[in-house]
């Protein structure tokens, strides 16, 4: 019916006299069922004119719109069937759906395998996509994030090689940049970690690891929401502090903390700080997180601004720059060497400072995935692992798609007659292709629903595993919807297109005559190739898991060159340091304590301190041209760790000169300096960081840092004021008893602080967490991959066997034994897996070699790992097909061959 007639003769009259909104009326006329249109439109208009009198035109229009929208209900909307569109198409499409659902229902097992396989593959993809989406979103929530850059400082040796690269810089850099580059740099902000102070409100005391001192303009650069307080002035005064929402609750519960005081205790001083703001908790996707932000002027006043501006050596100040909109940052970077020379002058050898000092910029949003400097505020993620996850997700999805393709084409015989009939009735090929593609999209749709369920189920586990707090409810819904839709369509199209083209190509004359399809042999080969490919991927993943496991084992069990067992590390403070001899004597009396020592750096941590110096090589004093890290220790340190000496001796407490002019080097340092043997180094003159003296001993190389690092050259000196850590070597069997003693002692020695310790062995193992996580993840995903591949193999094999029951029957009649039949069929499938192994072995070998390249100390790849991986896949495959083959092989030929 044309709309103009439905709108009635009065419509045009109505238009002239300020009637209800025209578009809405047309819209209502379009969707309203014919039989009700007259009365309903009449009613709507009657109310409309009444409402104009009561409320006026505007409100009446709004009410009219509301009424029309609320008319959208089944009782009002016209039935589709009554519509005059081509009902043949509708019937055809509903027939497609009917057939699709019937096919699914008649072959429940295959449908189940298809849907389950696809659902698992899709769930894995969705999960990994969510994770990657989150990883990529780091720090992008700041409004100005594309203009914020982090300053980092790199030290080079005389040959231009990198010695050290820190993600934070010395305090003078920030203000000097702001001054020298006025106009080019909009804002500069410095943040300094608070060193884990003990914060106190009444009897509530906690150590706050995530307290930062931040300059007053911090909120002008970063977009964190200040829930209470003033963004501009919150951190401009000395002794002011801003708490995160959750730490405010921790200290003040339901009270309003604004304006209240909180006590800051650290370095033996305590300071009342006024709370000037409450800030949102750091968003999870931030490369560093705070619990409290205190005003930077507090530190400046404490240290003295002038003093701070001379502290070129304390590189602890995270410095962020904000550039003006549209500014070309490379323009700024090219001026940095000149800036360094201007302020740092010349090195001791007369070269400009920029030859050994470099400043770098990194965009804020890149830090989380791309920054792996020697020191960062928090450990970052790694873009390489993101790539690995993407590859794994794609692998699993491909395996699931292959399942679908294989099972669909294998079952094509069953659909051949349908295709024939449709073609005879006049269906053209393109409509058949659409039918099958639509069918696979339907399957994909069902799978996607299941996949969403799976994702919801495993998300808590995944969060736990990935150390995230991803929640579906808080996620961007449009992103989720797009993701699920995209995965569904892609899977539906990819998995559906091949069967669609394959099935729609049947010639009706042939399939309806019932003759075997020609060219079936070729298709079987393609199917086999796909099965081979599935197993190829699965085996690659299994071997990958094996080698990652080997490498982790290797790193954990490799002899480090010193004794890491039963070493308990405790924090020190000034009090303990000044009375160290007394503390040490008291501890040494304990039956469970073997040794006690004091040091600036503990093995398993990083070697971040170094200074320059000279050494006597071949009779002349030469500049040390590379980085030798220093470790400040007491006389007992090397002894406690049982480090091997190659030449010379340890520090001697009886010789007072050892405390001021003795150096012990490790072998890497001796080699680097050019002494030919450790013995040659003994007694040579050595100056380092202002201290002049002699080399008294050379130790063997040992792994001070984790096995991710090469053994660095080290110099040990007797400490003069830098002993932040105390290492206690506990005798075996006394661990429990000694720990409780130490707890008691330390609560006494560090009043107010919580007892906090770690062991060197544990700390070493913690370094390999990234690898363990990757290994664990690939374990799960390779499990999934092989499971899906097995599902597919099961479907395919049971189908093939079903097709071959007659063949088996004839073979048995002619004398084949159960064993030989089983052997024959098992061989058919085993060969596919074996080809998969043969392809996977070299590929995974080269792939894993790439991965191992990143490690300076790596395991050698064992052939056993490959053999186990292959055998595992083979055993799983045979187990999968075995039962079906067995069933077919023992069946009675009479049942299979008799045709009535």
């Amino acid at each position, binding site marked *: 019916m044309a709309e103009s007639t439905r709108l*009635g*003769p*009065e*419509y045009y009259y*109505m238009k002239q006299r300020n*009637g209800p909104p025209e578009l809405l009326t047309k819209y209502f006329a379009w969707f309203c069922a014919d039989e*009700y249109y*007259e*009365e*309903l*439109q*009449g*009613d*709507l*208009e*009657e*109310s409309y*004119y*009444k409402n104009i009198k009561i409320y006026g035109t505007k409100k009446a229009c709004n009410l009219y719109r*509301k*009424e029309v929208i*609320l*008319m*959208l*209900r*089944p*009782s*009002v909307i016209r039935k589709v069937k009554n519509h005059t569109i081509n009902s043949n198409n509708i019937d055809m499409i509903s027939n497609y759906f009917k057939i699709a659902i019937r096919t699914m229902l008649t072959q429940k097992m295959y449908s189940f395998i298809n849907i389950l396989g696809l659902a698992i593959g899709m769930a894995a993809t969705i999960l990994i996509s969510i994770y990657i989406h989150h990883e990529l979103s780091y720090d992008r929530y700041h409004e100005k994030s594309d203009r914020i850059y982090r300053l980092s400082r790199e030290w080079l040796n005389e040959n231009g090689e990198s010695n050290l690269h820190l993600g934070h810089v010395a305090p003078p850099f920030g203000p000097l940049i702001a001054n020298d580059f006025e106009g080019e740099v909009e804002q500069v902000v410095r943040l300094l970690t608070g060193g884990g102070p003990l914060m106190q409100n009444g009897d509530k005391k906690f150590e706050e690891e995530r307290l930062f001192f931040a300059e007053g303009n911090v909120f002008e650069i970063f977009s964190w929401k200040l829930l209470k307080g003033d963004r501009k002035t919150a951190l401009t005064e000395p002794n002011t502090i801003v708490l995160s929402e959750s730490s405010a609750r921790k200290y003040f519960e339901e009270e309003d903390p604004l304006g209240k005081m909180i006590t800051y205790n650290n370095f033996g001083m305590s300071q009342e700080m006024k709370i000037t703001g409450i800030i949102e908790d750091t968003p999870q996707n931030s490369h560093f997180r705070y619990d409290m932000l205190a005003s930077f002027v507090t530190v400046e006043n404490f240290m003295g601004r002038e003093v701070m501006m001379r502290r070129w050596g304390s590189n602890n100040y995270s410095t962020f720059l904000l550039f003006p909109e549209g500014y070309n940052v490379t323009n700024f970077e090219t001026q940095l060497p000149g800036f360094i020379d201007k302020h740092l002058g010349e090195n001791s050898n007369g070269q400009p400072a920029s030859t050994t000092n470099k400043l770098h910029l990194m965009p804020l949003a890149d830090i989380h995935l791309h920054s792996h400097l020697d020191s960062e505020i928090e450990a970052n993620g790694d873009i390489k692992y993101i790539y690995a996850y993407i590859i794994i997700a794609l692998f699993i999805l491909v395996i699931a798609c292959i399942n679908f393709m294989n099972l669909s084409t294998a079952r094509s015989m069953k659909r051949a007659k349908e295709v024939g009939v449709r073609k005879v009735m006049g269906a053209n090929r393109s409509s058949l292709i659409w039918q099958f593609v639509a069918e696979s999209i339907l399957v994909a749709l069902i799978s996607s629903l299941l996949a969403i369920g799976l994702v919801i189920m495993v998300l808590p586990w995944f969060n736990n595993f990935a150390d995230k707090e991803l929640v579906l409810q808080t996620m961007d819904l449009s992103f989720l919807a797009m993701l699920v839709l995209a995965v569904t369509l892609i899977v539906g199209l990819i998995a559906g297109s091949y069967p669609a083209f394959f099935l729609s190509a049947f010639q009706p004359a042939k399939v309806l005559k019932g003759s075997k399809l020609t060219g079936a042999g070729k298709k079987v080969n393609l199917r086999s190739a796909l099965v081979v490919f599935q197993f190829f991927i699965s085996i690659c993943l299994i071997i990958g898991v094996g080698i990652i496991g080997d490498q982790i084992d290797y790193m954990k069990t490799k002899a480090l060159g010193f004794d890491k067992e039963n070493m308990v590390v405790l924090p020190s403070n000034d009090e303990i340091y000044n009375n160290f001899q007394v503390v040490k004597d008291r501890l040494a009396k304990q039956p469970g304590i073997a040794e006690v020592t004091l040091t600036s750096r503990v093995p398993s941590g990083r070697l971040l301190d170094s200074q320059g110096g000279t050494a006597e090589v071949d009779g002349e004093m030469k500049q040390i041209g590379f980085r030798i890290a220093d470790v400040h220790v007491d006389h007992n340190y090397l002894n406690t760790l049982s480090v091997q000496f190659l030449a010379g001796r340890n520090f001697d407490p009886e010789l007072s000169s050892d405390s001021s002019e003795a150096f012990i080097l490790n072998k890497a340092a001796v080699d680097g300096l050019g002494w030919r043997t450790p013995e040659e180094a003994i007694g040579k003159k050595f100056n380092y960081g202002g201290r002049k003296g002699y080399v008294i001993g050379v130790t063997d190389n040992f792994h001070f840092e984790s096995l991710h690092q090469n053994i660095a050259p080290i110099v040990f000196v007797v400490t003069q004021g830098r002993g932040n850590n105390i290492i206690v070597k506990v005798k075996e069997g006394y661990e429990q008893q000694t720990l409780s003693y130490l707890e008691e002692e330390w609560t006494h020695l560090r009043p107010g602080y919580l007892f906090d310790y770690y062991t060197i062995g544990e700390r070493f193992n913690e370094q390999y967490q990234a690898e363990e996580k990757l290994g664990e993840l690939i374990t799960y995903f390779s499990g999934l991959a092989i499971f899906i591949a097995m599902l597919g193999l099961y479907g395919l094999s049971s189908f093939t066997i079903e097709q071959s029951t007659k063949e088996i029957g004839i073979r048995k009649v002619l004398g084949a034994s159960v064993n030989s039949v089983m052997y024959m069929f098992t061989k058919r499938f085993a060969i596919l897996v074996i080809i998969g192994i043969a392809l996977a072995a070299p590929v995974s070998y080269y792939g894993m070699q790439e991965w191992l390249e990143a490690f300076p100390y790596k395991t050698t790849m064992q052939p056993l790992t490959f053999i186990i991986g292959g055998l595992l896949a083979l055993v799983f495959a045979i187990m999968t097909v075995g039962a079906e083959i067995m069933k077919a092989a023992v069946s009675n030929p009479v049942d299979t061959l008799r045709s009535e």
Partner: protein
Amino acid sequence: MKGTYLGEFQEVVLLSVLILGEEAYGVRIQEEIQHEMKRVISRGALHTALTRLVEKGFLTSKMGEATRERGGRRKRLYLVTNLGKDTLREVRLLRQQLWQKVPGWALNITI
């Protein structure tokens, strides 16, 4: 029996139709309910209820005359059938029986 159950809203609609008598058509019923029950209902929701009541046989309808403010369209007039009247009585009886069983003290408001 399917469909003889009378929902609360449907009961209100039926009663309104009875009240309005000859004048029971869409807009009037809508206004009556909004006025008496102090709740806003949409014409669409009312339509659903009316259609259901006709399907159940509680209401019949016929087309009435057209007016100018209706854009020259006819209105549909509703009438409660005998079945509808019986059902209303039954519902009321059941209510009353329940009310009689409620002990007096049970309605005291407790704090």
